[in-house]
């Protein structure tokens, strides 16, 4: 199964210059290689700061585009890694090895299998 590991962190901590944060940043650069070697890696990207982003909506055929997402919390969406894992527990274990997990939060979400029925709410 495929899972998205969605990475959140507080930029003031990650880029705050502490030795721990600098260690995380150094490891981030090569972590894709670690996941490729173990066979878990499918895709992954880091994202720039939200002040470089736009938010887009289409309503009644009209597009609106505004500056960046408005952050309600200190933690921002900072990147994602798609992994292949046997099950949710293996995915959680892989996510725990992502360097940003040590100072931020990783959300592990199974990727939708469109052959399955839609969720009933």
């Amino acid at each position, binding site marked *: 199964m495929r899972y998205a590991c969605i990475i959140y962190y507080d930029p003031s901590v990650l880029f705050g210059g502490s030795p721990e944060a600098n260690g995380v940043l150094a490891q981030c650069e090569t972590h894709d290689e670690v996941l490729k070697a173990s066979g878990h890696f499918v895709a992954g990207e880091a994202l720039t700061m939200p002040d470089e982003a736009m938010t887009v909506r289409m309503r009644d055929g009209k597009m609106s585009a505004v500056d960046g997402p408005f952050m309600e919390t200190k933690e921002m969406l900072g990147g994602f890694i798609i992994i292949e894992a046997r*099950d949710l527990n293996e995915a*959680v274990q892989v996510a725990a090895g992502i360097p940003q997990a040590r100072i931020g939060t990783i959300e592990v979400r*199974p990727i939708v299998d469109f052959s399955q029925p839609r969720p009933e709410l």
Partner: protein
Amino acid sequence: MSQAGARVSLEAVYRTEARRVLATLIRLLGGFDAAEEALHEAFAAAAEQWPREGVPTNPYAWLVSAGRFRTIDRWRRQARLAGALPQLAVLAEPAPEPAMPEAVQDDELRLIFTCCHPALAPDARIALTLREVGGLTTEEIARAYLAPAPTIAQRIVRAKAKIRDEAIPYEIPGRADLPDRIDSALRVVYLIFNEGYAATQGPSLTRGDLCAEAVRLGRLLVDLLDEPEALGLLALMLLHEARRATRVDAAGDLVLLENQDRSLWDRARIAEARALIEQSMGSRRIGPYGLQAAIAAVHAQAPSTDETDWAQITGLYDVLLRIAPSPVIGLNRAVALGMRDGPQAGLVAIEAVIGEGGLDGYHLAHAARADMQRRLGLTKAAQASYRRALDLARQPAERRFLQGRLDDLAVRGAP
């Protein structure tokens, strides 16, 4: 070998060997997480090398050593980054290859005993055993238990943390602890079977995949343990399995033992179970599982309810009640007595058991009383008892059955 051929054999090897490789890696690497990572790496290495070099003669030994050496490599690299790690000293000493069949079996037993450790919560024992010994995925366990996958994942994560934090040893228990620990392992397997057989909730009355997995685990325990109760448990599960197909009709409704089509019972499973019961009786250490299996075997041999040897069943329940007293076994004994001596004697015995307490919230106690009252023509009392049973029953097929009995009585009782 062709690439497709190697892939097919890799999948086959995964199904047969992955759990045994994991069991050994946990011992060699000292923990679940490291071992699971090593297992993954070993199969990744196999996927790369086997199509080129062919499948090794002993895939188990190849995978164990690939997983182990890749982990040691990784730990060495990490140690260079972070300063020496204490476990490196252990890993530097090459241990002999664990290719002896007895050593592999010991590793599987260690894994079962660890997953069924009494320090873990009962729910966690079940989830951990199904995943680590049974090889089910978290999502499969969640579907079988009608639980959200994160709930099951959390149980497994917590159980592993507990094993690590409390340093629960990865070992076969010593002689003093062994009986208790075997009990706990057998109980986990039986709970898995029961969850599959008599689903407490949800639309389907049997969930065959859990039953099949429990039978597989039961066979493993019979192979690994010299224990009559393991034989008894496997026999008991096989006997239930033998009549699973006749227990529910095409509409999903419950079919009582007396109405089941006995020609459809699985004779091969019944024969296998009877051989296991004989073997367990021969040990002269028969326990609750062996006795329950012996009772189920009497039913399985009988051509009909009327021709069932109820005297023998009542006698077996008497023994069972002495060695494992419980209100539910007392109730079953009372029902058997009612079949042997007639509904009046049965009703007296059932009311005596209910009077002793502990069964008031148990729907089958009220259903059993209702059944005796119905046979005696005590329509009003029977209706009250069926109603009480219906209030307590949760399983839809059981509820439909009880409602059906109430409807029949309403027709019969009408002026």
